[in-house]
């Protein structure tokens, strides 16, 4: 009986344990770029409506809304808010599950509650038409996005 108990305990120690968490073994891809704000600072939206500003890249088009797509893992996003009241700023999106096709890459502004977002800039070769980006494993891409607060792109949600 005693030996069984000891054996059981030792077995429990060593069989119940795998190695736990591990880094994901995949080559990370990056979409880096620059956002150009064509408006002078005085033409930016008022500070109390600038809750957050991010670059979000959606896997599907049209996206439902920003928060839902992010929580469902259908969108990549910059981890911190972008700086406000500047001429331009850099960004970097980390993509771990390439290859993936990004169907809608945009600068989005949170202007109210958690679900109140709007698109203020779009990665696009032609206005109002999103340009797809096929991201391959381990590669880095550079894109530019222009933001004009006085002339927003057509809203997808």
């Amino acid at each position, binding site marked *: 009986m005693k030996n069984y108990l000891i054996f059981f305990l030792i077995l429990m120690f060593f069989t*119940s344990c795998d190695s736990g968490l591990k880094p994901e073994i995949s080559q990370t891809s990056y979409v880096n770029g620059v956002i150009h704000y064509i408006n002078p600072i005085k033409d930016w939206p008022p500070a109390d409506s600038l809750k957050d500003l991010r670059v979000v890249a959606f896997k599907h088009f049209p996206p439902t809304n920003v928060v839902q797509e992010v929580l469902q893992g259908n969108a990549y996003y910059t*981890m911190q808010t972008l700086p406000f009241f500047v001429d331009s700023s850099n960004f970097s999106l980390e993509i771990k599950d390439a290859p993936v096709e990004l169907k809608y890459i945009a600068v989005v502004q949170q202007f109210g509650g958690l679900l109140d977002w709007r698109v203020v800039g779009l990665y696009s070769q032609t206005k109002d038409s999103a340009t797809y980006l096929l991201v391959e494993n381990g590669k880095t891409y550079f894109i530019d996005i222009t933001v004009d607060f006085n002339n927003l792109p057509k809203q997808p949600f």
Partner: protein
Amino acid sequence: MMNLFKLYFLSLILVFILNNNALFCKQNKYTISGNIVDSTNAQNISGATVRLDRTGFGAIANRNGEFTLSQLPQGNYTLICSMIGYETKKISLANLDSNIHLMILLNPKIFKTEDIIISANRRLQNIQEVTSSSLVLSQNEFINNSQLNFEQVLKKVPGLEVYDENVSIRGSDGFDFGLGTRTLMMIDGIPLLSGDNGDMKFDFVPVTEIERVEVVKGEGSALYGTSAIGGVINLVSSDIKTDWHCFVSTFSGIYTKPRYQEWDYSNSLTTKNTIQAGFSNGSGKFSAILSGNVSKDEGYRSYNDSKDFGLFAKMKYAFSEASDLNMYIIQNATNQADWVYWNSLDSATKPHANTNTSIRLQSNKALVALLYNQILSNNTFLNFKSSLFYTQFYNTYPTNAADYRQSDAFQNFNDMQITTSFGNYTLTSGLSFSNNNVNSLSYGLRNQKIFAMYSQIESKFNSNLITTLGLRYDYEKVLTANSNAEFSPKFGLNYKVNDNLNLRASVGKGFRAPSISERFANISYQGFSVQENLNLKPETSIGGEVGFSYHNEDFFLPFETDVSGFINNFQNLIEATFSSQDYSVIMFQNATSARITGVDLSLNFLLQKNLFLNIATTYIDPIDLTLHQTLKYRSKFSAKTSIDYSYSIFSFDLSYRYSSKVENIDEQIMLQIKDAQSRVPIHVVDCSLSANLAKFVNTNLQVSFNVYNLLDYYYTYMPGNLGPTRLLGLSLNWKI
């Protein structure tokens, strides 16, 4: 309100005067002295506790096993002698009318069923007589394998989840950003929670100065008020030796390299080193302990290092055999990196990319406390506690930077308690007042006052049934915020069925007043910002438990077991809640009501001579009654098992700790912390091999080799925070 407190104070004085014939009658006084020895080898037993039942008289045997109880009035007494590892002995002394000397023989016992505890009812008593689940760890159970750190000590306690200066008893706490705690931590009954954050300071008291750690689970507010809503942890300091005595304890450890190259952030191995040393001495009526400690931990993650320096002094002046004054002076300074969360799972040992790694977090703490004990008669004693606890922290950002945090807090605590026995009753009553003053750029200029009065009566209807009825009233007044009043009743039963079986049950109410920081925090740090909430109300809990303890040393496998079922209903639970406007903004709110039901089970077997198997499990079902989902940041199932074996001068300990995967966390946190959803069950195996070299070096010297997280299992203890990786350590404890 003040009139109510005055009336209560006067009634307390009246009660003890009426019950205190020593004040008015001049009586002859007698002495009981004696020696305490091991019945199997006739060796002296030092440290044994001797007390006269239902009186305030007590003593601890010196290193020669000798004790003296003086100034005893004529009367009938029951002397109780107890020592961890021995059977408790009761000796009836009918009509004491002369000085007597006793030779007390104690028999070693297998299990710890007769430990003494002071925290359960604010007086010394057998742990089998209390009505709540309680547990005592003595210093020899943790001194060799604790890394000289209380976090490691408390990780051994069943039913407790411990991480980063945060303790959760039976699921009471989740992830609180280090602000506020639902467990009251004390040293000798003096609170050790900071005046601003209301958080615990594990590094404040050196482990070597603590004789035992007492843990009482469940609502403790009926006696201890705010913060004891989840339970109480009392660090009982070592008694001062009156002869020359010194000690040195060290721990030196090395973190092994992580298994994955992606997590290997340093070219060299990182280390953790601690040394604690001190001495005690006494002469006549005065005795003192003085010690110092230094530690340096390079950490197992980049930008996670800390340096720590502390001093501890405890002085005792015995005015007479019936009264003494203890003074504590404790100081600690810590300089550490301001780690908050990882960069990502791929780089789990590095802080997130925007972290300014040149910033340091400095904290200073100091406690000055007085503890006065007075035996007023053979059935009435009084103690008075007064303390001033100063805490300060600041980071090294410029003072005008958004991420600059700073706070200075003074907590003044005063408590007067009278315990008196009459017939089959013991009445414990007291008044308490605490005053928190905060001067902080992060929280503003704040003041919080809490007045309280409490009474508890224990009744022994026959030799087997004990009932406890207690009530505490707390009135909280906060400058520029709402005031609150709380009643906290408690009722408990303990029934001794026979020498092997005890039943217990209790119901009670607990509460916690919001800390200054939860109410007034207006800070930002590392991507999060916290906003004030002036309307925050105290959270309350109504709960109960039923349980039993049973031991059978004649069974073919001698064993002891303790089982409890418990339920706690929380109202106005204070939780860090993400703003609906901005998910990087946090506000503490009375967010929800919740119910936690569960079962605690512990089993200790003696498998063969000197070989013990301990199994303890806790299952909880934490339900958020507002959102109808599992309460966030709680593990439902946890288990702690260990095998202890001793042979000759060696002892070996192998322990295993398990917590099931946390089911539910804030979704918004995933938007701020990369890979915050990466979490797994926790499996941690520690082992320790110790040798007592006293035989060879003619002094008390113990050496231990320890491995923490032997299997180098990787887990998160909260979102974006990898748990401690494997640490190899050598500890040395030397006493003369």
